[in-house]
């Protein structure tokens, strides 16, 4: 956990530096019409760098004294989390092709059947009825168009 702590505070510092660089480009002093565009972000960036530097130093100190400490995740927790993260990212990626509702149907079916070990009937019923009813609610009743993707418009034509 402490190692993750160190990495995250380093990332925050990096972010702060990136922000400062752009603020300097925009001008972080007094411009023609008052504070320039980079004024506020400059101090934000500087603040993040300083605060996370202290977090980093503390974490390093503790790491030296007490070692890694508790793991970031309890053992065996990474797998179920990845089983959520990867399929849902895939759902978003497939959305670009076939639209949100169809890719969600695939996602629902996949997760329920493969990960959740739910019976075929329930899986099929839910992964067809849920996207269909949400499609009708959003796209038809409230007229909120959801992403159709490249081919979704051809696949869902009603």
């Amino acid at each position: 956990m402490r190692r993750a702590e160190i990495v995250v505070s380093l990332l925050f510092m990096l972010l702060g530096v990136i922000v400062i660089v752009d603020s300097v480009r925009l001008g972080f002093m007094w411009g023609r019409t008052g504070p320039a565009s980079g004024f506020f972000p400059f101090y934000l960036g500087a603040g993040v760098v300083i605060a996370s530097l202290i977090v980093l130093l503390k974490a390093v100190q503790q790491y030296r004294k007490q070692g890694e400490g508790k793991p970031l995740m309890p053992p065996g927790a990474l797998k179920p989390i990845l089983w959520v993260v990867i399929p849902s990212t895939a759902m978003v990626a497939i959305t670009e092709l076939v639209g949100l509702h169809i890719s969600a149907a695939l996602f629902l079916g996949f997760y329920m059947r493969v990960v959740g070990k739910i019976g075929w009937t329930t899986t099929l019923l839910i992964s067809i009825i849920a996207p269909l009813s949400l499609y009708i609610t959003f796209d038809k009743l409230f007229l909120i168009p959801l992403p159709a993707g490249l081919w979704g418009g051809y696949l869902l034509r009603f």
Partner: protein
Amino acid sequence: MEDLNNLMIGFGVVFQPYNLMIIVVGLILGIIVGVLPGLGGANGVAILIPIVVTMPATAGVILLSMIYWGALYGGSITSILFNIPGEPWAVAATFDGYPMAKGGKPGKALVLAFLAHGAGAIFGVVVLTFFAPILAEFALKFGPAEVFAVMMLTFSAFVGLGGKSPLKTVVAILFGFILAAVGMDIVSGQLRMTYGTIVLMGGFNFIVAVIGLFGLGEIFLTVEEGLKVEGIKARIGLKDILDGMKDVIRYPKALIMGTLIGCWMGFKPGGATPASFMAYGFTKQASANAAEFGTGAPAGIIAPEAAAHAAGTSATIPMITLGIPGSPTMAVIMGGLMIFGLQPGPMLFKEHADFVWGFIASCWMGNVLGFFVVLAFAPIFASILRVKFAIFMPLIIYVCAIGAYAVNNRMIDVYYMILFGVLGYLFKKLDYPIAPMVLALVLGDMAEQAMRQALIIGHGSPLVFFTLPLALPIMAAAIIIFFWPVIAPLKSKLFGKKA
């Protein structure tokens, strides 16, 4: 008395059939949101925003707030019956609620929780009704320097009194402000921190962030713990209701303490979650039989539940009078107001009095009605959790994706949602607070604008924040609270007392 007249006019709005229907639908949706882990108040409201936009303004905002009240009530059902908090603010309800339910009195535990919720809520709404107009009148005198000072006070409260690591809170707040600054500079129109990409030009929408941080982040945490549902079946009989009422009267201290702590925590941004923990801790300390706590003590249910709901309702006060939301859920509701072109702040009371009083009346109505709805149908709502997690979890992610996309009709937001989900998980694990980060993201543009205007007024001297008569005390309070983690140990050293 003027307030009472206004309130009556507000009730006139609420009693329109359409609005009444909205209230009931909102409450039921809210309770469902409250029961389901992974679908919380903040992202429940966020997902609905695209739908709400199609409604009239008053009805839309009422619907959003009903989700919050419903979720506040609903969160405790699963805490008590399943030992699974449906909402973070209901965690404290598991300490004594679950043992009591296990001990054979699930009905009584539920009734106690709902009664405490109702009492806390009503107290918060009373304060809202009578204090908010005064505060709004006062806030009319605020210029940019004062507005910025109030925001400083808000964020100082998170750092100094938030209970998390002050440094990490600072990092989280600044990170939120940085995300808010990405995109077009609101004053000069220049592009900032886009690094030549078109994707970053649109900036980060806080509703997307909320859906990711609270929705997906929460789901990852639940998955990690491996959700096992072992519930207690409950029925609420007349005897349970009478028993519960007797106990609420028998422990007035717990109720009053919880309500007051909740009110304070909701007003001073903090929100329902820390309020419930604080109330539990204080009541336990003050109780004569502290050993009973954790084994099903009635006071241990009453205090945190009253605090959570009082914090929820009183978080409305700073939101509607100052434009500063007291909790993440309130921030999303405020986002809803702004979509309707209703800029929260002191002018709202002048320009849209009908809306303000309709909204306040709906808070009365919703919290009272919510009590009866939840009391009558608690067992039915509890049965939702008997549906397998592997079924409703992907459904929640699907609905979250719809919400994230529909905010701006941008596909990139759905990717951001997943990123924010992972970020939320990491934040939780490493103890970086999420709530102040969300508030910083919401208030970023306003804070920056106020600061820059104030500096222009002061000809570039930051002394402008310390010389104006209204700004000075607020700023001074902000600085003291900010350094409170450093001051408190010093004070106890000087006076030789334990802080």
